[in-house]
């Protein structure tokens, strides 16, 4: 028996220590296999697909990192933040300034840069975004839900103003170009060194694809681990009831501050990746619309679900790009300046409709939708094969938690 403290009586009372997970065993083998197959597919993709899809993939990877970070804050903890664009900007500008070279910009202003290795720029960009989050976290820790949303709104406007006016660092309203990424002398540009894999030239798009894959995967795994452990449980309880969380020993203010810090660091990394993906930064890339788009990602994907955030990010980021690419094939969608609906606008109509549909029919988002299918494929008595038929009948058909009070008696 336990050595932590005196054991409660009757710890051995119930003989039925149910082998609760047995029913999931076929799924257990299948899932890692599917994931491995998906990973292998993503790894060999640059050998087969065009540059457009790889560039889209990197943009999606960057958005996935940002959306996972925002979902930790909004979906898991229930803290609304509209400042995500601001933290993206901190990451992007820091990277550009730290790793960029000083140089001319027209005749009047001169850009400055530190010219440090890009990996330093990336790490410091993440740290500075974290620092910005830390500075704001005393406010974040004391506010809740929509109030934090309104308070964080101010940061976006400050960010855009600074981007427009601090020309030596940000390039002003024209923006500035972003230095190529490189790692220990290996450039993620088009050549230097020239690279061929199985006869396929590996240029910037191919190289960035792998960078995005690694970073998005790391962000995903970290968040997954976090949610399944002690801090994750504390954050989820905090969302459901702050009073309950604090009475159970969770320092609510400290946890709100910490999750805000983590979220802003995710945003910082996402900002660096965004800058690399576009190749330049400009004030309009970090406006309120971006914050809203990130909220759309996590609502579409499923609040509180890491996989959902990734799905939502992929959908919201890739759709306008795909529309643009195939404007001549798609009905109603046109290339810029041709009349009809521009690709970006068409994509936004679709997000709008999708968000409304999700909120109405599947509040769990894309992740909830996927879960629904997975549950259908499984035996109904998930997780309790040894439970009595009565307890199986107790279980409602959907996930609605409301249950008439008198049913508990039938479980034994």
């Amino acid at each position, binding site marked *: 028996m*336990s050595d*932590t*403290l*005196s*054991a*409660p*009586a*009757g*710890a*051995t*009372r*119930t003989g*039925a*220590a*149910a082998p*609760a*997970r047995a029913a999931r065993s076929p799924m257990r083998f299948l899932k890692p296999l599917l994931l491995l197959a998906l990973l292998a597919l993503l790894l060999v993709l640059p050998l087969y697909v065009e540059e457009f899809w790889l560039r889209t993939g990197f943009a999606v990877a960057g958005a996935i990192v940002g959306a996972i970070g925002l979902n930790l804050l909004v979906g898991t903890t229930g803290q609304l933040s509209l400042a995500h664009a601001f933290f993206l900007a901190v990451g992007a500008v820091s990277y550009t300034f730290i790793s960029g070279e000083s140089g001319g910009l027209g005749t009047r202003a001169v850009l400055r840069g530190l010219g440090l290795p890009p990996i330093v720029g990336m790490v410091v960009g993440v740290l500075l975004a974290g620092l910005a989050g830390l500075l704001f976290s005393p406010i974040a820790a004391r506010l809740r839900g929509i109030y934090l949303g309104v308070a964080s709104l101010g940061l976006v406007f400050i960010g855009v103003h600074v981007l427009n006016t601090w020309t030596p660092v940000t390039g002003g309203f024209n923006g500035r170009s972003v230095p190529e990424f490189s790692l220990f002398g290996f450039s993620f540009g088009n050549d230097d060194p020239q690279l061929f894999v199985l006869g396929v030239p590996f240029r910037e798009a191919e190289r960035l694809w792998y960078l995005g894959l690694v970073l998005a995967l790391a962000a995903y795994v970290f*968040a997954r*681990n*976090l949610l399944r*452990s*002690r*801090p*994750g*449980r*504390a954050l*989820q*309880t905090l*969302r*459901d*009831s702050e*009073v*309950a*969380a*604090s*009475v*159970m*020993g*969770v*320092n*609510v203010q400290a946890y709100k501050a*910490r999750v805000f810090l*983590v979220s802003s660091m995710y945003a910082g990394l996402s900002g660096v990746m965004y800058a690399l993906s576009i190749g330049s930064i400009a004030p309009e890339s970090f406006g309120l619309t971006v914050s809203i788009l990130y909220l759309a990602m996590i609502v579409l994907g499923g609040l*509180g679900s890491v996989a959902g955030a990734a799905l939502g990010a992929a959908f919201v980021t890739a759709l306008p790009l795909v529309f643009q690419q195939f404007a001549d094939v798609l009905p109603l969608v046109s290339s810029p300046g041709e009349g009809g609906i521009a690709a970006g606008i068409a994509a936004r109509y679709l997000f709008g409709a999708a968000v409304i549909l999700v909120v109405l029919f599947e509040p769990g988002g894309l992740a909830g939708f996927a879960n629904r299918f997975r549950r259908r494929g499984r035996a109904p008595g998930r*997780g*309790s094969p*040894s439970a009595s038929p009565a307890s199986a009948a107790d279980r*409602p058909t959907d*996930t*609605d*938690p409301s*249950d*008439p*009070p*008198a*049913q*508990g*008696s039938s*479980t*034994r």
Partner: protein
Amino acid sequence: MSAAAPGSTRDTTRDDVPPVEVDGVSVAFGAIKALNDVSFTVAPGSIHAVIGPNGAGKSTLFNVLSGVYRATSGEVRFGDAVLSSMRPFQIAGVGVARAFQNIALSGAQTVAENLMLGRHHLTKAGFLSSGLRLPRATREGRVHGERIREIAEFLDLGDKLHTPVGVLSYGDQKRVEVARALCIEPRLLLLDEPVAGMNAQETERMAGAIREIRAALGISVILVEHDMGMVMSLADRVTVLDFGRRIADGTPAQVQSDPEVIRAYLGSGTETDPAEAAAAHTTDATGSPA
């Protein structure tokens, strides 16, 4: 259900359980006094019931004990710890656990995850070590997972550990609420109406569980309850509140025959102005938190 469980031989109080001293506690919300100079002492290892009509201030008292409300004046001591000047998470840290009246569990999480939250102050894994799955974080989770299982089985929840709380029946959820409080490894357990809404059979089962908890762990239990039969059979001592004031304090037998108590519960017929009493009743209904 056999009451005599193996291991329930420990009928003595743990020696690290101090008395709870509630000393002249008042809580005011604006002009309304939800608690007015309430004092009583909970002997170590006893089951102490707090009863009273609706709006008597029972839940307010619990909120003061667990740090959710600040006392306007007075003090609550638990050994060396002055609970009335601590924040809720610090109170959990000295071994005071509370089970909520209106279930405050996370419905989407499984029973095991909800119980693990009770181990929060006993574990250390932070954001970084959890996110990176450092060995110490996983080891910690495993060790405490075993204890969780014991506590769940003790409350007949062993086969529901991996079920989301939201789909459990009401009675089961109430027991998860108590189990989660036990997972704190408390020295003082606060139970806020643990059998509210339960049928007779479930009530009997919960009463048995509370007796066993006290017997096996030797901890103090403070109980707010409306079910008089349960209170009288379970409690060692009873404190009666009415309109925020303590009107009686004693053994169940003493309290039952106390004329003040009978008047509070049944009315005395000498009440001259019923309208005034009704008004006082409605303004005093501050005792229920979210």
